[in-house]
């Protein structure tokens, strides 16, 4: 009976440690290691996507050879988003949820909001 309880205890502990590792420790470590890389890749992908949209719209209004070449180059440029996708999958495998990734995404998009507060503090805008 004792052996059974001890085994149960061990199994329970391992399960608890396993769950804590999967749902708390790994996402935490994953975020710590890859967050900045993820933000950079997100920004680079966004940038090539913007370029692609601009190139596509340019062809709509100006069907010159130059515009078409730019669009083709922008299409190839979209391959950069592969790295972002790969990193995204990696982070999901580390246990981050879609919600966590969106949160990091918003943080990256709005990172420069801090410079507004710095600007206001620096200039001490007071009335």
């Amino acid at each position, binding site marked *: 009976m004792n052996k059974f309880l001890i085994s149960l205890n061990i199994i329970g502990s391992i399960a608890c440690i396993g769950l804590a590792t999967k749902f708390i420790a790994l996402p935490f470590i994953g975020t710590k290691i890859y967050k900045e890389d993820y933000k950079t890749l997100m*920004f680079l992908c*966004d*940038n090539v996507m*913007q370029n692609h*949209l*601009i190139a596509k*719209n*340019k062809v709509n*209004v*100006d069907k010159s050879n130059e515009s078409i070449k730019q669009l083709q180059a922008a299409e190839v440029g979209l391959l950069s988003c592969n790295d972002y996708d790969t990193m995204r999958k990696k982070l999901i495998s580390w246990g981050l949820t879609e919600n966590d990734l969106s949160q990091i995404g918003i943080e*990256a*998009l*709005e*990172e*420069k*909001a801090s*410079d*507004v*507060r710095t*600007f*206001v*503090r620096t*200039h001490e*805008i*007071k*009335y």
Partner: protein
Amino acid sequence: MLVTFQVALAENAEIRIIKQQIKSGGFLPSGDLYRNPDEKLVDIGKVIFESKHLSLNGNISCQTCHLDRFGSTDGIPIAAAVGGEGDGPKRLLSGAKLLPRNALAFWGRGAKGFDVFFWDGRVDFSAPKKISQFGSNPPSSDSLVTADHLPVVEIREMLQEDEFVQKNKNESVDKSKEVYKAIVQNLVKKEPEASRNLAKALGKDVSKLEYTDFARTLAAFIRSEFRLKPSKLENVILGKESFTQSELKGALVFYGKGACVTCHAGPHFSDFKFYTVPFPQLGFGRNGFGVDLGRYNVTFNTKDLYKFRTPPLYNVEKTGPYGHSGSVRTMEEAVTAHYDPLSLLAVDKMKQFDKFELAKRLSYSDSTTRVNYLSSEEVNHVVSFLKTLSF
């Protein structure tokens, strides 16, 4: 004695020339520009303008970001909207949700000749083909009434993203109708007196009120409260006052060497067209990562990349900080941004991508907006002249 006489004669000639230039630049007396088709709704509009119930769930009113003491704006670089406390810098530092652009002043909005709204002109009734987010069927033929439909359904600006908003947030006119309906219900419930008065003024039942009716009250109030009034410039043109030496020199630069009048023309000192002036970019920008593609976001025409509407100049002295992202603090810096933008930036301290974006903005900048080199003294004179547009 002869020299003094000659100097006085030259000054008189300068004044005569400059007055001619101001008139041919499109100047009109303030009284000629006022129009208010809904004068009877002004008092109700004041209540709605000041009411935080105009925001469905964000606890914010028009007045929160358009304050008298900041010249009808908020006194900070970019608007600090829902989720904050207080106003101006205090609101910004209190953790309010930030918007990507500088809050606009209201002077002369909806007056004669003022039919292009927002930094990117997303409401533009200046041509027969009216442009707005409502496509070919705007809620009103009045540009200001149509413009008053936008902030209340803008997430972060006057709306918090709750479950109801999430359900209705895709950019379709039909979905937005649900949000407008909810805003009207909220106003009728929480501003019962103003709603009753509005229904009475329009001769309809309270239950039949629509958001457009409330937007009409806002337009009426804005037109009345922020109407253009006689400025020193107007008095000079009418011969009631004279320019100081600095103001006259500034006017000569504005209409001469600086060619500011190329774009800052017409009765509102704006041609209401769109140009790229490489102001520094502050904040995360409408396109994220510190990028704001400006008018391009409205037209998707690559010719409109990084372009913003020429800002009207009445009361410009009171409406700092300046630029679409409020990145320059003083009028002197704002003038400098037109001909020497790099002097406003610590390029060596910028991140690599910010430098890349800056180079892009510079490459798109319009030769039309390129001002000749001005000395710092000349810049100060231009600022003196611009101050004559205050009232």
